[in-house]
């Protein structure tokens, strides 16, 4: 990167604000907290811009810092305790009928995953990153990323599939 002048920073802010905010929002499911966190990320970018070597490096850096800050924030707020995945009711409509609330329920389920698994899912499905890229961003082995993803998808699938079961079977659970 060049000397990191104000103009360059403003361009980066304009280009990447949605990505950063969106990662934080899907992680925290709190618009105010997501904005505050996203602002902190860009403040740090402003200070560290000279250390970044290329536009690709900036993107990787933003994703990494946003994820790490989101994980720390969520742990401090103990969001998982507030909304355990088991407490989130599955969508009430069968999968064959489009449910406008299904996406919202799915987002809620994602936000109730353990923090690291949540980060893997958000980077995979929002940013469409490859697993090895996710491993580099989060600083964890590839095997661990795969394991987190598998477990998360299993949990989500289980919750979502309950909506397709006939009502009589609901009481048997």
């Amino acid at each position, binding site marked *: 990167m060049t000397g990191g002048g104000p103009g360059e920073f403003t361009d980066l802010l304009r280009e990447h604000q949605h990505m950063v905010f969106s990662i934080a929002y899907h992680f925290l499911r709190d618009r105010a907290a997501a904005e505050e966190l996203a602002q902190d990320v860009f*403040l740090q970018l402003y200070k560290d811009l000279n250390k970044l070597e290329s536009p690709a490096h900036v993107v990787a850096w933003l994703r990494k810092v946003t994820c790490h800050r989101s994980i720390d924030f969520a742990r401090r707020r103990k969001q998982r305790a507030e909304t355990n995945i088991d407490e989130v009711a599955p969508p009430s409509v069968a999968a064959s009928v489009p449910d406008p609330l*299904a996406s919202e329920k799915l987002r809620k389920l994602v936000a109730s995953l353990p923090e690291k698994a949540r980060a893997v899912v958000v980077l*995979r499905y*929002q940013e469409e990153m490859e697993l090895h890229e996710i491993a580099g961003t989060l600083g964890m082995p590839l095997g661990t990323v795969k394991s987190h993803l598998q477990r998360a998808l299993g949990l989500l699938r289980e919750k*979502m599939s309950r909506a397709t079961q006939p009502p009589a079977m609901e009481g048997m659970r």
Partner: protein
Amino acid sequence: MKELDQELREALGRREAPSGFEERVLARIQREQTRAARPVPVPWWRGFRFPALALAAALLLLAVGGISVQRYRQSQETARGQKAREQVLLALRITGQKLVFARNKVLDHTLSESREEGR
């Protein structure tokens, strides 16, 4: 699996940052820069450029302070000694005066007895 993948992509699509986000970030940077530019009063003991100089100055102050305390204590002891001496002298003077008074009394008594015997 494919269905869930697709559902997740739709559910987790990028959200737009709130309106005015860019302006708020730039305003916050401006505030932090203004705060950083304000001169911070530096305590006198932070004025030293070199830690070694600061240490030497501190040691010198300690030494001077120590000597001053010692001298003060010595002067206090001297003063106390002087006071005690004066008290002793006063006591001796009083005792001496009383002795003289007593001697004079005795002499007076002896003289008066001698006069009476001589009659």
